């Protein structure tokens, strides 16, 4: 029931998002056709036919509705170089998905482990070190972090390839995934730590201890599960940002993913591509949030899904 309702909610979200993005691209200054020809003059007849081909001679609403009409028949339109947008996305999406999932795995696993130990050893050396390090990671911009790691790990130490080869195999994506997940990793550590500190002084933890449970069981069964509730929410919402926010990382490591695709399309003013990519990202975002809500209810039985 709850899942059904959430899926129905997708419909207005989809229309809203596509309309907004379509309008933003439309309103962006610069003429896409002029950009296509590299700013050189073009024969008026050629220009007119190109405009007609991409419906650029129509007013905004007509353009948008023509786009929607094609969408119903699963035709996402074409790029200016004549490729089907759906093909382009199908090539880029798996690469970004792999990258995002690796980044998510890194931040979830290491974030929770570091966060738990920092929280349990609050005020000790390990905790302080983790706190300072995470603050540092949050403070340094991704492009700095990315280039530094690319240079040190990829070029100097040559532990990994500095750029991703075509086809973007898993192994090549490890370094970009670390860079992509590093900032969120710092947030996950801090969130987990705070949550652990809060829960470890809860009354039910004391009661669990009084029952004669081992320290380990108290931590894993009674502190950890309760502490993970806010962390799971963060991770779910972060998956969406990782998919869409990989533009910088994909640029540094030359990853042929969605971020790169989107960046190029925006530069060229290709509304069909931009809207299609953003719509897919919106979809990912909404589904990720749905999964979070279901997970949330599973982790915390007090929450009823209505």
């Amino acid at each position, binding site marked *: 029931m709850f899942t059904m309702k959430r899926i129905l909610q997708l419909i207005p979200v989809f229309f809203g998002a596509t309309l907004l993005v379509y309008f933003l691209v439309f309103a962006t200054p610069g003429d896409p056709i002029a950009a296509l020809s590299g700013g050189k003059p073009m024969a008026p007849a050629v220009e007119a036919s190109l405009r007609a081909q991409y419906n650029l001679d129509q007013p905004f609403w007509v353009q948008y509705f023509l786009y929607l009409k094609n969408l119903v028949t699963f035709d996402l339109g074409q790029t200016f170089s004549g490729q089907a947008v759906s093909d382009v996305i199908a090539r880029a999406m798996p690469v970004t998905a792999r990258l995002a999932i690796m980044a998510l795995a890194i931040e979830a696993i290491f974030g929770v482990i570091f966060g738990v130990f920092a929280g349990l050893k609050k005020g000790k050396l390990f905790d302080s070190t983790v706190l300072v390090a995470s603050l540092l990671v949050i403070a340094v911009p991704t492009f700095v972090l990315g280039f530094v790691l690319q240079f040190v790990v990829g070029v100097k130490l040559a532990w990994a390839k500095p750029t991703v080869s075509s086809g973007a195999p898993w192994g090549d994506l490890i370094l970009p995934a670390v860079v992509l997940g590093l900032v969120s990793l710092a947030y996950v550590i801090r969130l987990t730590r705070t949550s652990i500190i809060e829960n470890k*002084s*809860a*009354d*039910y*933890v*004391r*009661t*669990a*201890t*009084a*029952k*004669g*449970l*081992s*320290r380990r*069981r108290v931590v894993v*069964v*009674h502190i950890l*599960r*309760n502490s993970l509730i806010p962390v799971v929410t963060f991770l779910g919402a972060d998956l969406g940002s990782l998919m869409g926010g990989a533009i910088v990382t994909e640029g540094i490591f030359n990853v042929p993913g969605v971020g790169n695709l989107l960046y190029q399309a925006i530069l060229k003013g290709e509304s069909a591509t931009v809207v299609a990519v953003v719509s897919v990202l919106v979809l990912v975002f909404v589904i990720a949030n749905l999964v979070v809500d279901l997970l949330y209810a599973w*982790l*915390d*039985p*007090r929450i009823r899904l*209505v």
Partner: protein
Amino acid sequence: MSEQLKGQSVNGSTDQDRPLLEIRDLAITFSTPEGPVNAVRNARLTVMPGETVAIVGESGSGKSTTALAAIGLLPGNGKVTGGTIVFDGEDITHASEKRIIELRGSSIGMVPQDPMSNLNPVWKIGFQVKETLKANGLAGNNSKERVAQVLADAGLPNAAVRAGQYPHEFSGGMRQRALIAIGLACGPRLLIADEPTSALDVTVQQQILDHLDTMTSELGTAVLLITHDLGLAAERAEKIVVMYKGQVVEAGPALDILRNPRHPYTQRLVAAAPSLASKRLQSQPTEVAEDLNAVVKAEHPTVGEDILQIKDLTKVFKIRRGLGRSDDFTAVDNVSFSVKKGTTTAIVGESGSGKSTVAQMVLSLLKPTSGSITFDGQDMTGRNERELFKFRRRVQPIFQDPYGSLDPMYSIYRTIEEPLRIHGIGDAKSRQHRVRELLEHVSMPSSTMHRFPNELSGGQRQRIAIARALALQPEVMICDEAVSALDVLVQAQILNLLNKLQEELNLTYLFITHDLAVVRQIADDVCVMQHGRIVEHSTADEVFNNPQSEYTRNLLQAIPGATLLL
């Protein structure tokens, strides 16, 4: 509970003459940012096998800290800095973590204070019982049946099914039964019961304590009962240890302490214990007082006239069931009563009886579904904002929690002055004069006005809340559990203050409380509420001496210490 049963406890190997728990010269220090705090000094107590010993004291007296030290559960910044704790002949003061874990659950069990926060909300009740059995090697093969048995023993009906439910699906009383089940699951020799029922209604409290008594005497378990309630301690324990400011000030057989308290603190505690024997504090305005109030009375209703009339008051809440469906829940059902000027009417009931909902409607904080509230001859339901504003000046609330009802960012002066400013009374200078006067009324030095709520104790804060309520010279004060959060001695002081103010200012009180002993001391008239209805409405003397309804009789019987003869 039977003495013989306790004597022949089943612990065959135990030497009955040797204390089960002996605490000698215990000192506990907490390290705080402001430096070390000595929470407990020279505490000593002895619990014999099968015996019930109560530690009585106010909050902060160190009673819980002392007991928790015995089971190694001091908070992270607390440390035993002196003395010894001997359990069954073994010195466990500085026992290893491993040894303490062995003792917990199987030898020393615990029933904690607040049933709402002591069960892990994300695990089923059955799971939380089972892990206790498992940790102490008692789960066996039929752990499911064993869990149901343990829960049923603690008085949980339909235990097998309820074991599959989560804590939030249990009522407070049921949760406490589950916690008792956990505490006694592994048949410990000593049970530490830390205020096991203070969060519960008085009738539930009685059932739970009766059941705990039965269980511990059958099992031969010794109980270390921690409580702030002297009546309860005297009723349930053979020996009482009185703690005050981290020290044991008096110890001995329960009735001896009650009859012949020697330490001044114990004497005050006994005197203030709101037992049934106490009478209405004298507050009826005397002839002289009436003369003094003659001017006031010319404009306002005189003593004896109804200032507040509640007629057929009903409040229905919608409980959402999802998808636009909702169920009706009648919180207040056709309630009618009236309050005479200058008197105190108490509304008594257990949690969920609708008494606070009535108070909120009288304060116009909540809109009634139907019925009328007449104040000084005017119907207050359906009034506009301006009329309500005037009404609010004449009817003021005092709330239960003095920690939550004062803004921590406001100085005391600003807190008391605020209503005067909002209602545009006087200039800055006269308002300052008035704040001084109000502080004097509630027996606080005028230097208090520059301080902040966090610098004051609970009782002092409640005095400030009263001063704020008095600022606008109201005629009616609605006290919603105004003394329930306070320790016994402080509670007595505040009740005396309220009586004094009633006398001086000819105030009318509507007193909402769950505590019948408090009602006895302050009320002239009593309404007893159950399930949203008034089941009994009479004068206080009538209700206490000749209760008409079954429910009122049960309530009266459940007051701890009710059966004690002093």
